[in-house]
């Protein structure tokens, strides 16, 4: 796939989009089309990944810096099972949220990866779509 590198790096996004549409409806009829599709899918996957990260890291920051420090004292006016809420967050609550965030991340990413065909399930050990970079990476 190295010989196709130049065409893949063309800045003309309309051309790539065209290949993408075509490839969705038709089986890829040339090596070149397959490459183009994977490149676009990989980019879409990466954008989805970054979106997940932004959402989850915001919740992480809200819980740890917000509930744990910034408005911890304000939360103390509420109670949860005998604990002032802010105090509870600093002692136990934040940690439980962290565990939840990581498992949500795991499940969410698994779904996105299956949708984009870049998952690492048993039947996809080598990748259904080989990523553009796969050849150049290993020295």
């Amino acid at each position, binding site marked *: 796939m190295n010989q196709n590198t130049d065409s893949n790096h063309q800045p003309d996004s309309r051309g790539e989009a065209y290949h993408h549409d075509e490839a969705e409806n038709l089986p890829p009829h040339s090596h070149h089309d397959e490459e183009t599709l994977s490149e676009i899918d990989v980019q879409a996957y990466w954008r989805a990944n970054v979106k997940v990260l932004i959402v*989850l890291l915001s919740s992480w920051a809200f819980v740890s810096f917000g509930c744990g420090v910034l408005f911890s004292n304000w939360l103390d006016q509420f109670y949860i099972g*005998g*604990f002032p809420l802010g105090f509870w967050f600093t002692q136990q609550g934040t940690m439980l949220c962290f565990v939840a965030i*990581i498992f949500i*991340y795991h499940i969410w990413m698994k779904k996105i990866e299956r949708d984009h065909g870049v*998952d690492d399930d048993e039947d996809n050990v080598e*990748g259904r779509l*080989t990523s553009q970079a796969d050849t150049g990476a290993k*020295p």
Partner: protein
Amino acid sequence: MNAQTLSFIFVGLSFALYIGIAIWSRVGSTKEFYVAGGGVHPVVNGMATAADWMSAASFLSVAGILAFTGRDGAVYLVGWTGGYVLLALLLAPYLRKFGRFTVPEFIGDRYYSKLARVVAVVCLIFISFTYIAGQMRGVGIVFSRFLEVEIETGVVIGMAIVFCYAVLGGMKGITYTQVAQYCVLIFAFMVPAIFMSIMWTDNPIPQLGLGDKLNDGSGLSVLQKLDQVTTELGFNTYTVGTRSTIDSLAIAAALMIGTAGLPHVIVRFFTVPKVSDARKSAGYALAFICVMYTTIPAVAAFSRLNLTESVNEVAYSEAPAWIEKWENTGLIAWKDKNGDGIMQYRPGHAFTPTKPIFTEARGTYGERVISNELTSNGNEMYVDRDIMVMANPEIAKLPNWVIALVAAGAVAAALSTAAGLLLVISSSVAHDLMKRTFMPDINDKKELLFARLAAVVAILIAGWFGINPPAFVAQVVAFAFGMAAASLFPPIVMGIFSKRINRSGAVAGMLVGLSSTLAYIIYFNFIAPEINNPEHWFLGISPTGIGTIGAALNVCAAVIVSRLTPAPPAHVQDMIDDIRIPAGAGVAHDH
């Protein structure tokens, strides 16, 4: 049977178990030594990661810090657990896909530079040494107590044991041994916690017991009682924080970023079979950690109540036996300032310097005489925070086997972390420095020899720091986190999420981050400890939290220098594309 004999039996049995596992899973190749051949189930790996990461500091020291500082201490809990979110989201999957042995290897390859790799090794060694010194101190405390010797002797015994243990096996042995160690340490931590929770509240779940009502019929809850006791004696109110918001934020951030940058934790995610397993594994690791970490606040609260009740206003001649035993290790001291023979436990340091300097003599009541200069406050007690967890079962008058169990648990915690750290130090020295930088021609056998030699040197230096620690165990460890935050975390994350950060940027960033953080910590702890207070701190941020500023400087330096120098070459940009995709990750491999 007395507690000492039982401790010998329990620690001995647990050792037999660890050594048995280490022999059963002996390693033959460098790959197995470093990453266990890459075939460890995520739950198993999660449990091993939890043991690896929960150190003597977690086991012994955090509850002690929380017991003495109340709400302020909780920032350690938030910081250390929150780092796992960063680790799982920003590092673990990508580093697993990258699939090599060590953190410097990633930095060296991503930044196509031997210099970057060497700088990363230097950062890593600094971090690991600071961290391992804390472990040695922890092991020392355990041995000094149950062999009833001075803390220095305890540290030396600990060094000998870690030496035998860590040089035996590699990562494969360590992974399964750590699973056993997790079971031992979590059991050892939970049993006294449950006992104490029942004792005070009748609630067998310590996490819930902390919020419950006392069972003495007073109608007060545990937290109300704590606030009452602390306020009456003039301490800070237990559930009210006193640290400034900016310092709390900085410490929490430094600990979180630092956790994610700890090399011995990162390397654990090279051992799972798949990228998705690395994410899952981080989740399990944190869940296993939280079993203990949510219990710590309860242990802290109950032990504060226990301590105050059994020490304050009690005549020394009628003091419980554990006071004398800990006095013999040098971790408790009493100076009868007002000559009434009764121990007064109040806020403030009883004498200067704050640590007791004992003379050979014994006082009127048989207490050890100290030669420190006395302070003018009413406090007569010195209680080392690190003894709280170890002393808990005795203070709470729990059966002897619980005391023995805690000793075995603390040793497990210290050993599992020390072993993980030694492995990281030895693999970086042997693999990154020798094999990949200076002596590329050496064979597997030579490399393993270098790895073991590095472990020996590491133990010796760590032991020295364990005997002469700059601060409490958890604080020593906190500095390691600050350094990890300032040096390793930024180049790894930027290396994954930016294609523009280049060789010069990464090196400049690491150097700026590590040196600024190190300088700040050294200045305030060793050069000018007398001005180590909020008025003199930069922006009011303590040395514990300065890693956050170090990390920010690191990022700034890296971005600016990268902008001024050429972009990374095409093969590196392709590599970045590759590690962003989970599919196609083989086992971690060598060159």
